[in-house]
């Protein structure tokens, strides 16, 4: 489903002294099949924007179309839309509630498809857990509160993807995870992307995460889209980002430093590739000092 937003505005607590305008005319298009990243500071409107996408926040100003659903219409089929646009909130493991993992994962499925049979439910739950990297037979009858933090997050994600949404939105999916956990989670998202969910949108303030994983990204600043494009396009504008108080990824910074020393190296956003590139350059040009420094930084 294609997501098209035009001139989106939103005000929290309107007509009170606490009124804050979260979105100030936002234009953004996310094509089907993208792995899209949204970057921005706290309060830049990231969460407000994504909550519009499945009508958790109803449209009050501007236009928004998600696939064939026109969010400006009063009669928009919200429940149907929500089954197609899955949303994983920050720290999703805090929303688990059922007695068993199986029941919790099945919650969304039973809400969206009334009267679904037990066999079908079990098959869907089993598959969702498998995709999320959890062994069904091991955890199905356990209480979600018995699991470890990382496992709980996977169960929570399984609870959203169980309905096979076309678009999957994740708000800070890697928050609070250790580096290995982050890496595993991103691998999980790449596995889901394409086959299971056509489009994936992640919200993050970690530049490296966006740079390494996304096909395209947008930078939000004060309720507007400040920059939009491929990671290369965005992170080549270091000054514009710095003006918004944002960093560039580690790899881009290293490439910049190397270029400043007269070593022509292209930015590459996956750490491993970048290190390989630098090492190859070093071997070829025999400038060990500068190359080693850059390589160490990247690692």
């Amino acid at each position, binding site marked *: 489903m294609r997501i098209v937003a035009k001139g989106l505005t939103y005000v929290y607590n309107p007509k009170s002294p606490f009124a804050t305008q979260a979105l100030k005319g936002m234009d953004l298009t996310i094509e089907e099949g993208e792995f899209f990243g949204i970057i921005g500071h706290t309060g830049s409107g990231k969460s407000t924007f994504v909550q519009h996408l*499945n009508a958790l926040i109803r449209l009050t100003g501007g236009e928004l179309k998600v696939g064939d659903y026109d969010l400006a219409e009063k009669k928009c089929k919200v429940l149907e839309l*929500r089954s197609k646009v899955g949303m994983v*909130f920050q720290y999703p493991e805090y929303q688990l509630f*059922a007695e068993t993992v199986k029941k919790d994962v099945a*919650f969304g499925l039973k809400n969206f498809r009334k009267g679904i049979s037990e066999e079908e439910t079990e098959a869907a739950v089993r598959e969702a857990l498998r995709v999320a990297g959890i062994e069904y037979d091991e955890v199905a009858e356990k209480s979600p509160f018995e699991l470890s933090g990382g496992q709980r997050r996977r169960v929570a994600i399984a609870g959203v993807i169980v309905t096979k949404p076309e678009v999957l939105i994740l708000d800070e999916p890697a928050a609070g995870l250790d580096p290995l956990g982050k890496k595993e989670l991103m691998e999980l998202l790449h596995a889901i992307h394409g086959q299971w969910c056509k489009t994936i949108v992640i919200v993050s303030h970690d530049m490296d995460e966006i740079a390494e994983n996304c096909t395209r990204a947008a930078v939000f600043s004060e309720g507007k889209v400040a920059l939009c494009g491929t990671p290369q396009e965005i992170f080549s504008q270091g000054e514009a980002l710095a003006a918004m108080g944002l960093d560039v990824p580690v790899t881009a910074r290293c490439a910049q430093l190397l270029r400043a020393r007269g070593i022509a190296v292209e930015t590459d956003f996956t750490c491993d590739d970048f290190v390989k590139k630098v090492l190859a350059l070093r071997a070829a040009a025999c400038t060990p000092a500068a190359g080693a420094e850059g390589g160490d930084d990247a690692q």
Partner: protein
Amino acid sequence: MLNDVTFGQYYPAKSFVHNMDPRAKLLFVIAYIVAIFLANNFFGLILVTLCLIFFILLARVPFGRVLRSIKMILFLIVFTAILNLLFYAGGEGDIVLAKWWIITISWQSIINTVFLAMRLLLLVLGTALLTLTTTPVALTDGIESLLKPLKYIKFPVHELALIMSIALRFIPSLMEETNRIVSAQKARGANFETGGLIRRAKAMIPVLIPLLVSAFRRAEDLGDAMDARCYSGAKGRTKYKKLTFTWRDLLGLLFFVALITGVVLLNTYLLGRFDIIWQVQEWFGA
């Protein structure tokens, strides 16, 4: 959906009333409540009303904002008013308008009802003005300070104030958390808006359980954080914000002494509550 709760409804503004000492304001409201219940006739209540309006103007809080606090207890006011109207235990000399079974409506019961409704309204509006102009933290500080004498009978004043301020502190956090969990479950197709009472109550389970779990988690974290900073109760503890009594507070209190005196004088030297009936009858020659 939970943004309408008028608890901890502080309205930020710069005004005489906002700047008053919370202790003075508390005493002030107590005096105001006493005045409401002392008032025995409409003149007294009108005096209290005028005083309330004066203070609302002084506090620079929009009238609509103050009136909104009635919304929550409007039902209660209407309910008690109707009961009072129908079941007023009349005395000698009531002018009965209608009588049916055990229900009697008389001029006296109507007047009594209006009187009661006015008292309740004034009560709510006055206390609402207090919470609108005082931050919850200042309020608990004020209560702690006013209750200090109770320490001598081993009453845990400090602990009580701490419990109150922690509760107040966590209301917005838990509200935010609730909103987030509600959103998350809605995203998974939960429906909170339709269905009968039992269905709706059942629909709240996916919200209440995570909320409870998170409340316990927060409580544990807070306890740990307090331990880590060597919190050990009231002993030897100093305050970040010292309360100071200023000319404003003296002025306010004097004003309220005047109000109570005024109400008492009106009670004594003017007509009683029901005398207005005779007055009206005289005017219309009935």
